[in-house]
């Protein structure tokens, strides 16, 4: 669904921009206004909706002098437009205030937890693309067959299932009953203190340091939440692959390839899929962005110490600074990936350049 929206936007932008300079300018304007809009919305949520934002940050049980101090710190006595100006300035320098829960600056917390979310989303996307693309191709080639119907239903279930529920049930089955995977978390406690991460991507870090046991342990922890998120993106990727492939298989070059006597396998996997690949890259990028969001619930189930768990934990403790900081970061990454995929599409597809 997001794809349709983005391609529509791409098309709209394409028809208007004639020169590259204009396109770059338009692109910059889009980035700036979208980001400002993001900040405006979070500003509205954090400062305008609550009757007393200071109370919302420190909680109603805080003593009066604390509330007064926070009020002053927030500049709540200033007019709204000035407050917004300071808010934007702070956000641009990465200052989202201090988390009440952890007493660290919110940005520092986010920097610590973000790699975990990225690692999970990456595993999920790889899983989704690895299985989703072949399934989508299969469904398109055997259009209307039983295989097509099965892929369709598998995809629709992926769209319809509450991911937190599926997570709970799979934990019961694969962890509690079968003992195939490790318990919730990122690493066993044994390794938690002996292993020093470099980048925060545990799978990568352990490989680089040659610690195979840590790698195996991290793998056993990530496989279940990763596969779950992957199923979610598989649903999207397989559906879009099917639709792109159907489109390509109707083209004349396919007839030409058949007339030349190429094998069906070659036509499907080398000719058709190659042309479907460009919009597919956009789809995969978008599903990656979607997984960053989808991880909120998954991380809660699997005690995965990432951004999603950070946001929900802060929510439970009425830690508004952390919630909004997390929202801004997720939103920014979301915007960035959307724009990047847009750019990528335009660079990779020659048809979008000539016009």
């Amino acid at each position: 669904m997001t794809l349709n929206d983005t391609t529509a936007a791409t098309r709209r932008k394409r028809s208007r921009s004639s020169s590259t300079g204009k396109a770059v300018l338009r692109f910059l304007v889009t980035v700036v206004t979208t980001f400002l809009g993001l900040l405006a919305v979070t500003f509205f949520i954090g400062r305008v909706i609550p009757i007393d934002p200071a109370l919302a940050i420190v909680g109603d049980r805080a003593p009066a002098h604390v509330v007064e101090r926070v009020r002053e710190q927030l500049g709540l006595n200033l007019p709204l437009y000035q407050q917004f100006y300071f808010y934007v300035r702070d956000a641009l320098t990465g200052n989202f205030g201090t988390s009440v829960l952890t007493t660290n600056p919110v940005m520092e917390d986010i920097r610590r937890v973000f790699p975990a979310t990225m690692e999970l989303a990456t595993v999920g996307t790889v899983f989704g693309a690895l299985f989703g693309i072949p399934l989508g191709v299969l469904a398109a080639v055997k259009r209307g067959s039983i295989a097509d119907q099965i892929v369709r239903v598998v995809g629709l279930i992926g769209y319809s299932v509450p991911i937190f529920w599926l997570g709970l049930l799979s934990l019961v089955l694969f962890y509690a009953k079968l003992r195939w995977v490790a318990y919730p978390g990122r690493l066993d406690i044994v390794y938690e203190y002996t292993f020093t991460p470099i980048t925060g991507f545990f799978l990568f870090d352990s490989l680089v340091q040659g610690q195979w046991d840590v790698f195996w342990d991290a793998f056993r922890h990530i496989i279940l939440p990763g596969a779950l998120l992957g199923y979610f993106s598989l649903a999207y990727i397989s559906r879009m692959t099917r639709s792109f492939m159907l489109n390509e298989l109707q083209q004349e070059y396919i007839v030409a390839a058949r007339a030349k006597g190429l094998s069906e396998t070659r036509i499907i996997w080398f000719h058709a899929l190659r042309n479907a690949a460009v919009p597919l890259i956009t789809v995969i990028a978008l599903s990656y962005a979607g997984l960053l969001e989808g991880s909120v619930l998954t991380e809660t189930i699997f005690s995965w110490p990432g951004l999603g768990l950070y946001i929900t934990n802060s929510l439970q403790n009425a830690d508004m600074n952390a919630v909004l900081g997390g929202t801004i970061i997720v939103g920014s990454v979301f915007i960035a990936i959307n724009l990047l995929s847009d750019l990528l599409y335009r660079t990779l597809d020659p048809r979008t350049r000539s016009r």
Partner: protein
Amino acid sequence: MSVVEQTPKPYSRDWLLSDRPTSRHQARLGRAYVIWRRFSENRLALVGLGIIILLLFVAAFANVLAPHNPVQGDLMNARLLPPGSPGYWLGTDDQGRDILSRLIHGSRLTLMVIVLVAVIAAPIGLIVGTVSGYAGGWIDAILMRITDIFLAFPKLVLALALVAALGPGIENAILAIAVTSWPPYARIARAETLTFRNSEFISAVKLMGASPFRIVLRHVMPLCLSSLIVRVTLDMAGIILTAAGLGFLGLGAQPPLPEWGAMIASGRRFILDQWWVAAMPGFAILIVSLGFNLLGDGLRDALDPKEAGQ
């Protein structure tokens, strides 16, 4: 709309499928019939329709259908009974409440969330989209910029932040979901509006002196409805899932309301031994959102044959 030539069959069908309807009534019925035929060819779509009708039925007659009280349980004799226990077909939860009865009453909450979100979000999207498409110029630019900003937001995270500010509760959850779900509708309505903005019937109405307000309200909006309905139906599953997610995090419906997401959350504590407490509401959510997805898919294929199978 051209109708494929059919071999002669019973009179009524021929009449409905006639190329030259003799009355407006016949033409309308014929059109509806063609759409229905296209829709009912798709067996999965019929399954979806069946699920939704069942949901409506259960919600309407929840009081009659539910065998037990949904909020008050039997703590003495009926705590955490497994599914299949006599009188408690889907088992009971930790407070001795019948899960089936809670699910049946919960269907009302689910329906309420869907309907309210659709009633709030769809008109907003429709107005923003048609106005922006019809007016063009800077109005269009500003409205679409705002729409794009909301589209750029990850839905669940925005809803979370909103509920965090507004306070937990099912009304606020509905509001938060509605705020996050209107932008795609605006996009669709705008795209539709652009396709017939310069068409002759609009010029004719304009010549007759209709105000822009009247044109948008009476002539543009009705034409955007069918694609909007399809999109809203397709979105309903997402709405249900978001509402359940908020409920699961304790931000949606508050106890003792039998909201399905919140029921999963309360069953989480004893998932290892009494799996059914958390599992049953999940099945309900899965079935209902699957129903909406199947129905939406079928509607899209039937109403928009161009996109069929894509």
